[in-house]
């Protein structure tokens, strides 16, 4: 799987990387905001996108909207500290396949990947 990790925090991106099951990712790309993420997606670098919500330049909500608008063929799993029920509802309605709260653990990652049918 081509994996794209989108988060403005490099520590957070590393946590996502660490939580991925071994052998899951065949290629890994990292982006620090939504705009970079869309570029990477357009370059064909993302089959699965792990997306943070609170980011500068372009946040996760806007990124989801843009992906939805172009009917993007990628599975998006949101990983965020924004645990408001409304935030979770909103990302689901914008097409996210799953929501995982921060800080992510390997167990939560495995559950999310299982729930969306990726493992």
């Amino acid at each position, binding site marked *: 799987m081509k994996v794209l990790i989108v988060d*403005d*925090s490099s*520590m957070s991106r590393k946590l996502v990387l660490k939580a991925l099951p071994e052998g899951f990712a065949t290629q890994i790309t990292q982006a620090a905001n939504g705009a970079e993420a869309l570029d990477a997606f357009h370059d064909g670098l993302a089959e699965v996108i792990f997306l943070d919500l*609170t980011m500068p330049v372009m946040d996760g909500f806007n990124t989801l909207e843009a992906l939805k608008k172009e009917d993007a063929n990628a599975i998006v799993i949101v990983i965020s*500290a924004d645990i*408001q*029920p409304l935030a979770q509802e909103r990302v689901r309605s914008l097409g996210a396949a799953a929501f995982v709260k*921060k*800080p992510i653990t390997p167990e939560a990652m495995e559950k999310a990947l299982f729930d969306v049918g990726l493992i």
Partner: protein
Amino acid sequence: MTSQLTVLSEDQRDALQELMNVAMGQSADRLARLTGTFVTLSVPRVHAVTQTLDKVLTDLGIGDEPQLVTRQSFLGKLRGEVLVCFAVSGAGELAELMGYENNDVASGDELLMDVTNILTGACINGLAAQIQAMVSFGAPSLMARAKALREVLAEQIAQGYQSLVLEVRFEVASHSFTCDLLVCITDDSVAVVIEAVDKLLSEF
């Protein structure tokens, strides 16, 4: 005093910001549930008060407007104080957010204390949990009803009270309500935070 913050590396700053991000998510969730609204979060910011006060206030961007400021201290391995900065009309805005009819000064103040308690508790507990520290809380109080943050912070810093300020903004777009949470960590417990951050970073 020269603090370790002057040498805060990019990785340390990033990690601290992320710890704060997780902590403020918990505060926002509490505020959202309390008010039945959607709270928009901003990227948290880390300010070291080793620079001049002017620099910090410029960075904060809210230094000169009069604000209604509440405070609540926290104690333990992690020590400091949270300042919650509302608009001068913050109590009325909150009452409206909560759908309260009664809008006198006494009940407004009580509401401010409640909200300060909720935001501070969730945020500091969230921060402390991530660095495996236990904290307890003082009672919230009103610090200034309409004072520029520049003055409020100057008094704090003059007392040597803080050396690290973590800033979070909560916004309820549907009600044009905003408040800023400033988490001020004392100089002697900054080391605890830095140690915890280094431990996190060493795990990669």
